[in-house]
């Protein structure tokens, strides 16, 4: 047995992981692992808590997408208590959720991923980062920081907190929106929409045009896809809808989140704390072999862009059409996650504006009457990192008796492992590797925004 290269920590991603590349005696890749390092036990320590408190506890699962956990949790508690949020409450939640997608996508693309493209994957690590970006492209960097901040400030101004929110409540929302707030938010959302169009153009000309060919196959694998679509017209949805599980040949099934255990299951490996979700309904088991994977699908931006029939807002729809004409459906190249991310960025801005222009958004009936009781509820949203599922059971006092969660990233753990193996095996030959090569292996992971 040859040596092991430990890329630890995997950096410029939003969680804790390391990559281990095991080389054989000839210096070729024998095996690779993406080890997920952290486990905290949220499912267990929310047991016994009054369910209405849980949305403000589980947001601490992730500080990058706290709104997603907050709202999936609220939806699950709605379900358990059998309440339907008021229409205004529903829309306020959705608006916050899509707005949270905006800052997240700007963060991921520009702060974390862009340094690889703008400075180059082989640039020295001391400059291949957002600080280097500031020096190499100061105007762009300032603009990016400002736009990300604008998104965060809008959320904070309206909902009190941007990180670890509290304003979503079982039955709806904690406060109505007043006209002044609406005007201010609209103003900000329009500015963000302009920026998102610019971001996609920038990426198409300065990033994809340069790197797509060189990296078209980096970490490339062939899998199915999972994402949320509108119940009626199959268009892209982030806050609410049915799930669509697509095979690599583009055939698909649609199902309601409540039935998730019939379609999805979680594989546990002894070498990582993260479970690996796979398509149980395909009845082929779980296998990460590169040549003949079984049960493997992907989630997150590329998946959603692949599974939806269309996008309900004009700018994003135009971008989707162009994307499909170039890459087909489903598109498989891993680096296209970035492209899909920027299409969703446009959708998120457009959808925010759409909601703000809804005449009743300033209505005062934001929360339905809530009576704690025994029940079960499954709450789903599309998080930046993939479909997020919270499943709670409550007792007659409305306290949690059991909880199960499938977190966005876990859908992509198996595919990421495969992409790492694919990238490492293609790049490392006969014991020859460099910092730049190892960074490219990481880039295959970074695309997934784990």
């Amino acid at each position, binding site marked *: 047995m040859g040596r092991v290269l430990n890329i630890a920590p995997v*950096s410029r991603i939003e969680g804790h992981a390391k990559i281990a590349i095991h080389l054989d005696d000839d210096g070729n890749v024998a095996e690779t692992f993406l080890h997920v390092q952290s486990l905290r036990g949220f499912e267990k320590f929310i047991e016994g808590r009054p369910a209405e*408190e849980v949305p403000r506890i589980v947001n601490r699962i992730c500080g990058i997408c706290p709104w997603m956990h907050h709202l999936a949790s609220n939806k699950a508690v709605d379900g358990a208590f059998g309440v339907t949020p008021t229409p205004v409450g529903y829309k306020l939640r959705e608006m916050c959720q899509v707005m949270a997608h905006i800052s997240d996508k700007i963060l991921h693309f520009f702060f974390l991923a862009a340094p690889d493209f703008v400075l180059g994957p082989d640039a020295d690590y001391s400059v291949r*980062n957002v600080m280097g970006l500031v020096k190499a492209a100061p105007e762009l960097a300032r603009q990016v920081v400002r736009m990300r901040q604008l998104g965060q400030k809008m959320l904070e101004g309206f909902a009190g*907190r941007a990180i*670890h929110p509290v304003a979503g409540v079982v039955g709806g929302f904690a406060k109505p929106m007043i006209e002044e707030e609406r005007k201010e938010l609209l103003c900000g959302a329009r500015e963000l929409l302009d920026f998102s169009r610019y971001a996609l153009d920038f990426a198409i000309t300065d990033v994809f045009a340069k790197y797509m060919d060189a990296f078209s196959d980096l970490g490339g694998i062939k899998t199915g896809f999972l994402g949320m679509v509108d119940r009626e017209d199959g268009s892209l949805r982030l806050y609410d809808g049915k799930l669509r599980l697509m095979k690599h040949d583009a055939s698909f099934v649609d199902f309601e989140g409540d039935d998730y255990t019939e379609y999805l299951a979680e594989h*546990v490996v002894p070498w990582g*704390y993260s479970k690996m979700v796979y398509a149980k309904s395909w009845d082929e088991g*779980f296998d990460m072999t590169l040549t003949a994977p079984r049960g493997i699908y992907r989630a997150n931006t590329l998946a959603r862009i692949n599974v939806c029939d269309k996008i309900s807002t004009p700018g994003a729809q135009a971008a989707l059409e162009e994307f499909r004409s170039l890459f087909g459906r489903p598109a498989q190249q891993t680096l296209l996650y970035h492209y899909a991310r920027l299409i969703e960025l446009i959708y998120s801005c457009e959808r925010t504006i759409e909601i703000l222009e809804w005449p009743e958004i300033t209505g005062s009936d934001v929360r339905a009457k809530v009576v704690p009781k025994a029940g079960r509820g499954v709450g789903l949203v599309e998080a930046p990192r993939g479909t997020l599922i919270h499943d709670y059971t409550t007792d007659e006092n409305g306290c949690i008796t059991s909880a199960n969660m499938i977190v966005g990233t876990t859908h992509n753990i198996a595919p990421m492992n495969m992409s790492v193996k694919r990238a490492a095996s293609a790049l490392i030959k006969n014991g020859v590797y460099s910092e730049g090569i190892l960074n490219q292996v990481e880039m295959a992971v970074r695309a997934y925004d784990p």
Partner: protein
Amino acid sequence: MGVTAAMEWLGSCSGCEIAFLNIGEDLVPLITETLDLVHAPLLMDHKYFGQCGEGVTLEIPDAVIGIVTGGVNNREHLTVLRQMRKKCRLLIALGTCATHGGIPALMNGQDQQASWQAIFKTVSTDPGAEIPEVEVPPPLDRVYACDEKVKIDMQLPGCPPNPELIAELLVAIVEGRSPVLPGKSVCDTCPARREGRSVVGKVKRFIENVEFDPGEPVSGMRCLLEQGFMCMGPVTAGGCNGGEGVPACISARVPCRGCFGPVRKNGNQLLDMMNGLASNGIDFKSVVDRRSILRFSGAHGRLRPLKKRVAKE
């Protein structure tokens, strides 16, 4: 060249890091001029085992300022924290997880082994799954705040801390002065109208919205505790509003849940809250799930698994 700084996350959710990035326009000069980041996994690619992963011991470069977020939950966190202590002249614990355990320390109130087992045996996991043990850091017996394991020079709680205060702390250190940080409770910074007595002798669950006029600022709203909601403002360190303005949750018209930890570093939020309720004539037994009042400060041995009542002889 700025002052060298290293950042590390232990059992963190990354929210503290996002709060750091939310510093806003001052962020750019802060990370490019004031500070010289030498290690920060979220933002840059310095690796523990050399840039090609060939080393065997975990190394972090020397730095003047060290910032750690998250509590200490497993062996790797402990190794990283000790390495940070060794390499950084001034070590800051940032965020309530690092200072008081934070939400993950809710696990301290449970049987950890049984919980972990259950997590790998759910309605959706493959049958026969076991707790992973290969190449993953083994857990410690409980979740610790950073100062239970190494000496910490400065603490800034908050879940997450307020970005303005993070900036103030770092800039003050670089300028060699003491930072201006709020030392009072959330209530001290809250403009809600207080009349000095509670309307009811009980606290109610937050299943209905508070009473307020949306067109009016918070100063026109009656204190939430007086409205009968459990609001932890009295027993929670202020600062979530950056020192001025309305406490964050209160501005969303939602009661405080104590995310900045106790007012005094070693304060006990549960005891203080119950004492406070009792002395205001509010029945402390009306609080459902009292233990979750320790949801942000369960390290330092505060939160422990439940012991059942022993039968009387």
